[in-house]
């Protein structure tokens, strides 16, 4: 099963810019490779990554096969209020993983 690693500071000052690092295990099969028998291996990638901060979307990424296996995405956001950062990865073959992290803003 897919597992995600998320690195967000647990505490932040109000207005501080925090860096969010996410890593998820996924093969990101490009759809251009062939098996040993010569058959094309079907594409299997994560197509969309969305981060919401207390329900408001703050970051979205549309991914293509050129993203390396186990997509690693780093972005930043402003710590506005205490709450949760929710992450969702969706992709081919019904792939969907959701994770959330709590953050305390003082």
């Amino acid at each position, binding site marked *: 099963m897919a597992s995600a690693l998320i690195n967000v500071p647990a505490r932040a000052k109000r207005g501080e810019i925090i860096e969010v690092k996410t890593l998820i295990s996924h093969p990101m099969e490009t759809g*251009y490779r062939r098996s040993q028998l010569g058959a094309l291996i079907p594409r299997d990638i994560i197509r969309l990554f969305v981060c919401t901060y207390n329900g408001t979307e703050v970051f979205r990424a549309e991914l*293509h096969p050129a993203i390396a296996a186990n997509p690693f995405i780093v972005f930043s956001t*402003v710590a506005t209020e205490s709450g949760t950062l929710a992450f969702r990865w969706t992709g081919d073959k019904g792939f969907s993983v959701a994770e959330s992290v709590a953050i305390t803003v003082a």
Partner: protein
Amino acid sequence: MKRRTSRRRFLLTAGGAAAGFGLASVLQVTPARATPAAMQEAISKVVGPAHVNTGRVKLELPPLVENGNAVPLTVSVESPMSESDHVRAIHVFTEKNPQPDVASFHLGPRAGRASVATRIRLADTQTVLAICELSDGSFWSGSGPVVVTLAACLEEP
């Protein structure tokens, strides 16, 4: 000063040229390879009729990559990221991957800093291009060259 061509030098040059030709002919028959034209098409799909200015976008890529399967890439844009002046999106394209699109990142004023990082696949030595869309509707681009010794997509990871 006149330099005499030694036998060793001649053979090295001739061998290199032959290898170059061989490689070129192999590359020509490889299917599923985007061309700069395909990249232009992908860009125009995103940008539309707008003009793309050069500058403001900075790409951080290693100059020499041993393995094209995971190339660290950081794209940053000079922007105050305020409500009235921020980066709306950053799009990344490649010239020679099977598909020109790499990723599209959508940000807003809440990002605080216009900088994203990820790891990408590169099929060949090429130029990676990033285009950002600002809140005023203008587009800016930046690019970075990379030399790849082991290509992604074709070899086993």
